[in-house]
Structure formats: structure tokens, C-alpha cells
């Protein structure tokens, strides 16, 4: 058994060491907010926070997550910055199909925690690993600026 700290709770799971964290979240713990996209860290849909940093859960062996603080989209609203990001997303109707948006919100929240008033360049460098097949990039950018100015 492996014990993980997920959203502030200790969770025991029965998984092989090299099972990707994403599989544990979705299939073992039924936390389906974090999405499977490519399985190769190319799209960002599976982004979670590991010790505060955006991390692609699809390529992180669960054994590497032991002893670290994992935060998923299910709990990001409990963080003041995450809450502001969610509110900005809703206010600007950012999602279209929505599939990538939990990853986008996780990346944006981490960005705003590191850089409270990001420039467009900061946004590009933090968000370029999160792909949106609907092309909502302009609304994502606006929503990040809005969440920053709402602080």
C-alpha cells in the first residue's frame, strides 16, 4: 500500500510503484476532474500541483509522489488564488468543450501564485504546455489578467 497526501488528506492506495499518478487519481480514487489527454506530458490536461508546482500526473510515477503534497482541481477552489481563477473563468465563460480546462486552471493558479501580476510573456511561458483544442487561448489570457487584477 502507498500513502499519498491528496488535497490535505492521507489516502491509501494499492498501486505499483510505476503506476502513473493520474491512474491512481482517476481509477483508484475516482477523482475524475483531472483529465487524461495524451499520456505523454504533451498536452497538460492532467496537470495537478505537486508541492505547489504544476506537474503532469500522466507521467509521474505514483512512488515519486509519496511524501509530497498533491492538490487536484477538486480542491483548488479552497485556495484563495485558485478561487479567484475559477471565478474569472466563470465570469468570462472561458471553457468551450471544457476538457482541458481543469489543467488550464491548475497551471494558471500556479502562475499567479509565483507571479501575481504576470505579463503576456509570463503567461506564454507558464501556459504553453497546456493545449486547448477549442482554441480558447485568448479567453484564458484575459481570465488570468482578470484574476490578477481582482486580487
Amino acid at each position, binding site marked *: 500500500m502507498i500513502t499519498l497526501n491528496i488535497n490535505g488528506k492521507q489516502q491509501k492506495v494499492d498501486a505499483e510503484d510505476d503506476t502513473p499518478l493520474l491512474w491512481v487519481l482517476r481509477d483508484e480514487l475516482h477523482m475524475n476532474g483531472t483529465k487524461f489527454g495524451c499520456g*505523454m506530458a*504533451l498536452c497538460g490536461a492532467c*496537470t495537478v500541483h505537486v508541492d505547489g508546482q504544476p506537474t*503532469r500526473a500522466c507521467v509521474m*510515477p505514483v512512488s515519486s509522489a509519496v511524501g509530497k503534497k498533491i492538490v487536484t482541481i477538486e480542491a483548488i477552489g479552497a485556495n484563495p488564488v485558485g478561487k479567484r481563477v475559477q471565478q474569472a473563468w466563470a465570469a468570462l465563460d472561458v471553457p468551450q468543450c471544457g476538457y482541458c480546462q481543469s489543467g488550464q486552471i491548475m497551471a494558471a493558479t*500556479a502562475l499567479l501564485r509565483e507571479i501575481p501580476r504576470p505579463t503576456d510573456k*509570463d503567461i506564454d*511561458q507558464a501556459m504553453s504546455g497546456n493545449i486547448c483544442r477549442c482554441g480558447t487561448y485568448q479567453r484564458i489570457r484575459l481570465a488570468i489578467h482578470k484574476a490578477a487584477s481582482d486580487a
Partner: protein
Amino acid sequence: MRKLAERMQAFASCAAGIAGALALALAALAWPAAAAAAPAAKGDPSLFDPVASVVMGPRCLNCHQVEAPHQKDWGVIHAQQVVRGADGHGSAALRCQACHQATNTADGRVPGVPNWHLAPLSMNWQGLDKKQVCQQMRDPKRNGNRKTPREVIDHMETDPLVLWAWNPGAGRSKPAMSHEDFVKALLAWADAGLPCPD
């Protein structure tokens, strides 16, 4: 800052006398530290050729870059707009470890060793030819402050980031020779005094 500079200057002038005496005493011993940066080391420059065949390959060059890592065998700029950032580990919220784990993952498609990161900016090889790379590797100011030949080659003998080049996964090309042969070539080059092509 000025106070610090003055203190450093005072320390330097005091230390210079001691260092001078020490340098005389050490001059006859093997490889005094300053010699690593000497303009002309003695030895056969062709000893660097097998070293160059490895260190100028994509597995090394892709991370000895200025602003952003490169990737793949043809050295394309890293996707996802990955950048060096303040510390060589990526931008503030897109760190190397967002994707690069302690081992290769996704069936080898995502490379990994502990602490995946770019070479320090001072150790950039971008745009350098064989002779320039060789000279840079000998220069403590541009080689991570490695002062002796053995220190210079230690990174290539033991650093997991370097050893990854022989286990790159997913069909990536490996260096032109085995790591064992590479170490032999490094030792021959080091023992000859790190000679560089003219």
C-alpha cells in the same frame, strides 16, 4: 556593495602573498589549478576528437543552450515554449520537473533523471565549434569551476544527466561510443593535459 568590494580587495591583496608562495611551492607538482585555463596545453590535440564525437552530439548539446533547451536528434527548440528561467530549471510555473521525472516515463518518450535541468548559462556550447567547445571545457570560468583535468572529466564520468545519454529511450540516438570507451577517451585526453585542436 562597496564595503563588500573593499573587503574582497583587502582579502585579495593579503591572500595574494600567500598564494604566490603557495604557487611557487606547487609549481613542480601535478597540475596546479591555474593551469587548467592556460592557453596552450601540451599533448596531441587529436585526443579530443573522440571526446568531441560524444559531447557535440544532440544528447549533450540540447541542454548546453542559452535561452531554451533543444530536443530530438535534430536539435529543435523544446516544445511548450520551455525556457531556461532564472535558475536553469524552467520558468516560474513551468519547471523541468513538471514533466521530467527521476526516470524515463511514457515508454521512454519523456526523458528523466533526478534533477533534470539545463547546463548553467556559463557552460553554454550553442554555436561553438569543436575547438571552442574544447577550450571552454578547459576554462574554469566556463566549465562550472572545474580546475583540474580529473574535475573536468568527472561530470562526464558520473553525472546521471550525462549517463542518461546512453539510456535515452524511445529511439533517440545514443553517443557514438559506449560510456566505457568514452571514459577511456576522457582519461587519455585528461592525462595529456586537455589538449585542444588548433
